């Protein structure tokens, strides 16, 4: 009996030693085959530095399933410690998050690029940190575009010049550019360049049908006449030689490059043509730390992990390996990043594009519905089914209804 007790006691002690010393945090992500290995590498490095912390990376499929799972988990009160999230997801569970502004080391906090700080600030507080951020740039064929356009006028002109119908059947064999209705971020980029927006700054008024927006949509309608308008990724028609240049997210770079190789031409990347300014929309998710269902130790461990990811050498490693942007000032200014950009002009263009005018999505909880409404009318204009004014007025009405319901 005494021996049994002794064995049980020892086993108990062993369990405390084995489990008690280690804090486990869970990180739900949607990084697939190409982006997952660098994340695993950094996480492994972090755990070697911090043997008392175990970070469980859990792949949750694409963004769609990650969002569904997070909604369910927050509703059930059992979210993970960390999760990738878009701004419009974050607005749905503001109270469930730890305000990272109050937890991060002030030095680390001050190092996050101010543009990203703005994108991660909700109701005056920085809640999340930037994670996998990409930006909209211009991709073009070096053989057809010797000098890339730098203004709207040049872009439109060139797009129309490059639209050719060689066999004379009335359908162009090649378009100057391509536009994808499900990707209204291109329109939003041009809208911001024309100093327009979806909503007023206090988000109380719909401004999507004011003069600036109308000018922008009219420009899109003119551009659409020299553009291949289709729903799929533009890398497909680009590789088939159907389009000469297009505006797209920098995250699509590896796929667009494969397409160019398939088409047998050289692809180059530069900044989106500018108008009143050189704004360009930032895409990709941020990292949020949940306070629901987490112990103090888990929160502290997660803060440590975030600070680790934000170190200049790590944010640069992440950017180099994945194609996303560095997220800190010291990362952008590091010798390592500068040297890398010199070797990779396309990355330099992406980096410069961000610094020149990166902006994020509006922080309205109904952003997803607003975006969906926008796609409908954007598509109608691009396909010539609606006049820009008619479409924007209808869109404004729809957005009004959406935000009133909230």
């Amino acid at each position, binding site marked *: 009996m005494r021996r049994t007790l002794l064995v049980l006691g020892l086993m108990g002690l062993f369990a405390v030693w084995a489990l008690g010393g280690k804090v486990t945090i*869970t990180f739900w992500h*949607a990084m*697939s*085959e*190409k*982006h*997952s290995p660098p994340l695993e590498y950094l996480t492994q490095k972090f755990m070697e530095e911090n043997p008392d912390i175990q970070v*469980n990376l*859990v*792949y*949750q*499929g*694409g*963004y769609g*399933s990650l969002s*569904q*799972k997070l*909604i*369910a*988990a927050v*509703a*059930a009160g*059992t979210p*993970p410690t960390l999760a990738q999230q878009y701004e419009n997801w974050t607005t749905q569970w503001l109270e469930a998050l730890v305000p990272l502004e109050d937890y991060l080391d002030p030095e680390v906090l001050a190092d996050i690029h101010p543009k990203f700080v703005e994108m991660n600030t909700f109701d005056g507080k920085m809640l999340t940190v930037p994670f996998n951020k*990409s930006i909209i740039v211009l991709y073009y064929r070096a053989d057809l575009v010797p000098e890339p356009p730098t203004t709207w006028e040049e872009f439109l002109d060139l797009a129309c010049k490059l639209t050719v119908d060689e066999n004379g059947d009335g359908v162009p064999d090649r378009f100057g550019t391509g536009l994808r209705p499900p990707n209204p971020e291109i329109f939003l980029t041009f809208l911001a360049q024309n100093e327009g927006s979806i909503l007023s700054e206090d988000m109380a008024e719909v401004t999507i049908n004011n003069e600036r927006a109308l000018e922008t949509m009219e420009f899109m309608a003119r551009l659409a006449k020299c553009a291949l308008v289709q729903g799929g*990724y533009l*890398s*497909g028609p680009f*590789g*088939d030689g159907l389009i000469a240049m297009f505006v797209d*997210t920098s*995250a*699509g770079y*590896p*796929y667009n490059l*494969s*397409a160019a*190789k*398939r088409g047998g031409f050289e692809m180059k990347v530069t900044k989106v043509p500018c108008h009143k300014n050189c704004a360009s929309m930032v895409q990709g998710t941020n990292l949020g730390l949940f306070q629901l269902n987490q112990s103090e130790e888990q929160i502290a461990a997660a803060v440590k992990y975030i600070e680790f990811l934000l170190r200049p050498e790590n944010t640069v490693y992440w950017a180099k390996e994945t194609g996303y942007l560095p997220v800190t000032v010291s990362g952008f200014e590091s010798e390592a990043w500068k040297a890398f950009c010199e070797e990779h002009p396309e990355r330099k263009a992406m980096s410069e594009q961000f610094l020149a005018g990166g902006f994020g999505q509006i922080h309205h909880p109904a952003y997803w519905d607003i975006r969906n409404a926008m796609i409908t009318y954007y598509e109608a204009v691009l396909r010539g089914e609606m006049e820009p004014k008619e479409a924007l007025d209808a869109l404004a009405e729809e957005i009004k209804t959406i935000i009133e319901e909230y």
Partner: protein
Amino acid sequence: MQTYAFRRGIGKLLLYVLLSLGALVMILPFLWMLSTSLKDEVSALQMPPQWIPRPVHWENFPRAWSAAPFGRYFFNSFFIAITTTVGEVITTIFAAYAFAKMNFFGKNVLFTIFLGTLMIPGQMLLVPNYVTIKKLGWYNTYWALIIPWTVSVFGIFLLRQFFRTIPDEFWDAARIDGCSRFRYIWQVVVPLSRPGIATVALFKFIGSWNAFLWVLIMTDKVELRTIPVGLRFFMSDVGTNYPLLMAASTMAILPVLLIFLFTQRQFIQGITRTGLK
């Protein structure tokens, strides 16, 4: 006589040409999958498609296999598909028999409610289901992946239609001989309904084999994930690695294909007899 035979021959020939064309159309996506699985990323989307890849990238298969723990995924997919199929066949036979052949209070109302549940979109149930599974303590266990899927309203509906075609005289005769209801079901109804049951089983097996969102939502551990979750790994929001995705899909589809080859007679009979198209 000769002209009749000749005409019949021509008719048959036409029929075979048409069927062959149909078969070709059906098999094209499979051929594309197989061919793409052996290409590199650059030539994967070439138009017109290059059917015979040159050079052949055999290494896509080991690369896809090692990109995610597919060995474990295969085991899980098999284990879950087989257990849910067995479970569903058992519950479905009893429920369908009750609805088809027994009389009890509120039978039709109950059956209507049952059918009504088919109308509720799955997405709406996601949060309540997640909370339920969490509260039951089944999150991150095989229970969550198996138990809720051992009952299928669609299966019950399908088998009920099948059982209704069995004449009641069989039961009368069996009863006179002293047969119990349970024994009657196993020894008379089930053997008579083999095609129907095989159809239910096959639908379930394929459905379970392809299940994605449920597995993803109800588990957090790699050790519990299934093949479709592994396939999703090759797709991102900005593009897809088609050669690896197709290599993994080819591996994933083989078991289902083999099962279909061995059971296709039952499957087709089951569909035609229940009047489903």
